Structure formats: C-alpha cells, structure tokens
C-alpha cells in the first residue's frame, strides 16, 4: 500500500509538473516545472528500486542538464521577455493530436496483458550495475564517453566568442 501511495503521489507530481510545462507560457516557469518532473522521475526510479539511476538522474539531469537549460534561458533572456505564444490553430491541433495519441496509447497499454509484476524486486545493487556496465555494456559505455568528449569540444567550440569580441584580460 505504501508503494501505491508513494506512486500516486509521485505520479501526481510528475504529471502535474509535466502539465505545468504544457500550460506555462514563461520559459523559466517551464524550467521549474521540468525540475518537478525530473525530481519526481528520480523518486520514481527509487520506487522501482533503481537507486543508482535515481541518484544519477538527480545529479546529471536535475543538477546539471537543468542548470544548463536555465542558463540558456537566461543567456537568451532578453528574447524570453517577449512572450512567444503559439498560434491558436497550432495549439488546438497540438492539443487534439496529443490527446488523441494519449488516448490511443493508454487504451493500448491498458488493454495489453502485461506479465504480472515480479513479487520481489531484484536488488539492483550499484556494484552489480557497475559490473554490467563495464562488462556487457562496455562498448556503448566507451562510445558514450567518446561522445561526451566530442560534445565537450563541440560545445566549447560553439560557445566561444567569435574572434572580434574582446576577451577579458588575463590576470
């Protein structure tokens, strides 16, 4: 029962924040709502006994990615002041389509007979996960690291000021 309570609570938080993202017109508020979603999803991971994943979600997603996003919002904040509302037609079409999609998906999901839940969750130990990561999934792991390197270089390259701009003097 605790699991149920916790799930519904968290689901409310996650869904509520996601919906907040949908209805928010202010981009910073959207970021705040995203924080709610990310945090809620992290706790859902905890609920699914995926502790490590929950923590990584908090560190990387909420603590890193989100801050990068908020940073981006603020760097472009003068434009953010101008409310860019979607056209009514777009909003309406989007609503209809998304509701349709959701209805379809939910119907499908509910209709499908999933296997009964495993009675006892396997202990997703961090050590076990680490071993898997460095044995079975070593290649993707390494590829991701290479990708991150590329991203680091790429982001630095993209974000560097063009040659014309003056750099602050080195002290």
């Amino acid at each position, binding site marked *: 029962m605790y699991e149920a309570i916790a799930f519904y609570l968290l689901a409310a938080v996650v869904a509520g924040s996601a919906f907040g993202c949908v209805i928010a017109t202010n*981009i910073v508020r*959207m*970021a705040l709502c995203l924080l709610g979603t990310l945090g809620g999803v992290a706790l859902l991971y905890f609920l699914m006994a995926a502790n490590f994943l929950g923590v990584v979600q908090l560190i990387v997603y909420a603590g890193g990615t989100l801050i990068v*996003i908020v940073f981006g919002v603020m760097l472009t904040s003068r434009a953010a002041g101008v409310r860019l509302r979607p056209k009514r037609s777009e909003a309406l079409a989007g609503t209809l389509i998304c509701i349709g999609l959701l209805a379809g998906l939910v119907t499908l999901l*509910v209709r499908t007979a999933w296997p009964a839940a495993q009675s006892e969750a396997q202990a997703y130990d961090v050590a076990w996960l680490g071993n898997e*990561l460095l044995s079975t999934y070593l290649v993707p792991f390494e590829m991701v690291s290479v990708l991150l390197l590329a*991203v680091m270089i790429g982001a630095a390259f993209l974000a560097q000021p063009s040659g014309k701009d003056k750099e602050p003097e080195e002290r």
Partner: protein
Amino acid sequence: MLAIGLTHYLVLAAFLFCCGLYVMATKRNAVGILIGAELVLNAAGINLVAFSRYETGLADGQIAALFIIVLAAAEAAIAIAIFVNYYRLLGTIDPDAGDRLRG
C-alpha cells in the same frame, strides 16, 4: 489499483510523452522545445526502467536509461550552445525565425 504494476508506469510515461510532444510542437521558444525533448526522454526512461523492473529483471533497461540521462546532458549542452549562437545571430530564439538556412 493498489497493486502498482507495469501498466501504471507505462500510462504515466505515456502522459509524460504526450506532454513533451505537445511542448515540442507548440512552444515558440527553442529552449522550450528542448524542455519538451527532455520530457519525452524522461518518459522513455520511465518505460525502460519499468520494463527492466517488471519484465526482464535485467540490467539492460537501467543501463539504457542511464545512457539516456547522459546523452540528454550532452544534447542539452550542445543545444544550448547552438541556441546561444542562434540568439546572437538572429536576436530571437523563436525556432520559426530560423528558416533561412544561412547565418
């Protein structure tokens, strides 16, 4: 309803997914679209972990979700860098304004 199963998570993820899609499709701020993408990725993450928890019992779901998180971070970094440049060039971050294909 009290026994939480796979369906619950999947439905939640579906909702999240649709919200993300809506955000991506309607927000006229590039960062907003990025936020929508994050929602969609989170939905995928929930699905992966839920399947790994309730169906396979293997690490694959979690590992995939882990990679999603990491890749989302990379994606956001690059995207924000692009947006900042975009903003510098065009003075707006309305993605619709970027249909000229030239700097």
